[in-house]
């Protein structure tokens, strides 16, 4: 099913990937088209992890875009997913966030139509009527009334779903660098250590931009400089794969004094000489756990997933659009099954740094809302995305918006705007 983009949603002639019209953030029609062309289109969407489906019959309720989806583990041990909408009259079937179906059945409460973990219809009450009266038509064919199924792939223990037959295999979809970082962070069996959820009154793509934006990191997030811990001189940069996916990475041991001098000259709050000191520096204690010097990686698999390693915190951030001006962000923190007690205790303490109350990252929810509030009536105006030039693609520094321009390039193609 291909939905044609209506002419009035095409970008005006003076808009481009460095001047994106604010109508992409405040327009319900654009939002609805995104659900069709992006979330229901040729994209892989994060559904959860194998670790969250420990047994056959285990299930988890989630979403692809704003479509409710249930991911299950079938009797054959494989992951399946289907839209959480009964094939009969459209009622929600699974009403729990997660759990296990002991008999492997998923039964709608309304008329008790029963489906299996794969989403196939197994039973219809009173199909043949009662005492010769009523019942389904004689030619009723159960195989034609299965749930709307989601194509699923499990990749290094992470489950993705797509509605489209045109979505390429997951590694092709990711691209080379995302694949490499994905494999790096999923180096062994994982254990989920918990979820936190944040509801943000902003368009979901403000958050997509945010996670591709190395320029803001040292300017908005002031926890480190406030405590005299300087960060922007570290090595790193941004990498783009297939336009819409990106990696932001920071490497330790790459101090550059000339960079520090420039930062001092700009007289921003980014450079502070340590007016305040941490009373309990154990907050930042941690240990090296990868065979490289990368201390922070934030990579984004458009449209629904951001994965991060920030020191010893490891997390899947799932972006769930709710309307043109609201989205939910679900943070799923994990460690590895073979974590030492020491490493697990670092992860616990460092949870303070990230998430909805994260000392170094809570501002991202705020910045998204700041933008949404301001653009509410200004769809005909555009932003200005020219830090680091007008190009797209990979950069070996932080003063760039190249990955954001790349996102809009890919977005225009997906949306045909």
């Amino acid at each position: 099913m291909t939905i044609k983009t209506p002419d009035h949603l095409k970008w005006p002639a003076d808009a481009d990937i460095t001047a994106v019209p604010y109508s992409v953030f405040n327009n319900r029609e654009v939002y609805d088209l995104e659900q069709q062309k992006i979330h229901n289109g040729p994209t892989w969407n994060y559904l959860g992890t194998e670790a969250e489906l420990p047994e056959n019959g285990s299930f988890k309720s989630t979403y692809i875009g704003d479509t409710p989806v249930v991911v299950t583990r079938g009797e054959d041990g494989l992951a399946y997913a289907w839209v959480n909408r009964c094939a009969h009259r459209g009622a929600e079937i699974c009403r729990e966030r997660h759990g296990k179906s002991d008999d492997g059945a998923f039964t709608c409460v309304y008329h008790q139509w029963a489906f299996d973990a794969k989403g196939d219809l197994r039973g219809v009450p009173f199909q043949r009527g009662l005492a010769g009266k009523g019942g389904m038509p004689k030619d009723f064919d159960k195989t034609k009334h299965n749930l709307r199924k989601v194509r699923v792939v499990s990749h290094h223990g992470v489950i993705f779903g797509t509605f489209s037959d045109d979505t390429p295999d997951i590694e092709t979809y990711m691209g080379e660098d995302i694949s490499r970082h994905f494999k790096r962070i999923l180096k062994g069996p994982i254990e989920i250590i918990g979820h936190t959820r944040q509801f943000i009154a902003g368009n979901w793509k403000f958050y997509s931009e945010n996670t591709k934006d190395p320029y803001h990191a040292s300017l908005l997030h002031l926890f480190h400089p406030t405590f005299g811990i300087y960060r922007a001189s570290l090595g790193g940069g941004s990498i783009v794969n297939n336009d819409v996916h990106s990696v932001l990475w920071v490497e330790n041991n790459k101090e550059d004094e000339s960079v520090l001098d420039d930062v001092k000259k700009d007289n921003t709050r980014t450079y502070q000489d340590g007016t305040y000191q941490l009373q309990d520096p154990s907050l930042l204690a941690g240990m090296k756990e990868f065979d490289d010097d990368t201390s922070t990686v934030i990579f984004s698999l458009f449209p629904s997933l951001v994965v991060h390693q920030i020191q010893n915190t490891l997390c899947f951030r799932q972006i769930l659009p709710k309307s043109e001006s609201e989205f939910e962000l679900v943070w799923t923190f994990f460690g590895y099954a073979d974590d030492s007690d020491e490493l697990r205790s670092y992860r616990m303490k460092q949870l303070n740094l990230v998430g909805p109350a994260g000392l170094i990252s809570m501002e991202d929810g705020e910045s998204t809302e700041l933008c949404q509030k301001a653009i509410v009536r200004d769809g005909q105006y555009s932003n200005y995305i020219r830090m680091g030039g007008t190009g797209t693609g990979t950069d070996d520094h932080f003063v760039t918006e190249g990955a954001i321009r790349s996102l809009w390039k890919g977005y225009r193609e997906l949306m045909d705007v």
Partner: protein
Amino acid sequence: MSDDKNNLMLKDEVNDLLNAYVQCIDDDELEDWPSFFTDKCLYQVVPRENHEMGLPTAVMWCDSQGMLSDRITALRHANIYQVQWYRHIISNTVITSVVNDEIHVQSNYAVFKTCNDGESTVFNVGRYVDVIVRVNGQLKFKERSAIYDTHRITTLMVIPI
């Protein structure tokens, strides 16, 4: 005085501590907030869903007075957020047991948040599960867990619960 869970004076004292704690936060006297805890302590704000699944993830997790103070320093000088005020309502305070001089207390709470637009919203609802001890005659939190039902945090949480 014996610290017994039915002792009315102890109940009064526990209620005073709980009331003074929320008054401190609601009156924006956050620099005093760490002093409600013992030096080594546990303060955590935990989504109910994690608590029920036995998963440890908290949005705030501090195990020393120093970490609590650092949260407040960050709130005052580093973090960026809308002007906001909390108003806590606590109820149903129950001393569940007193064991080895540790007073175990549970209470319900609701936190209303008001920002500059003037709208007050129910920001966070849950229960406190506390372990309270006596230090130099004064009651302090050795452990305070805010286990919250409102497991979807609106925008961000910067002020402690």
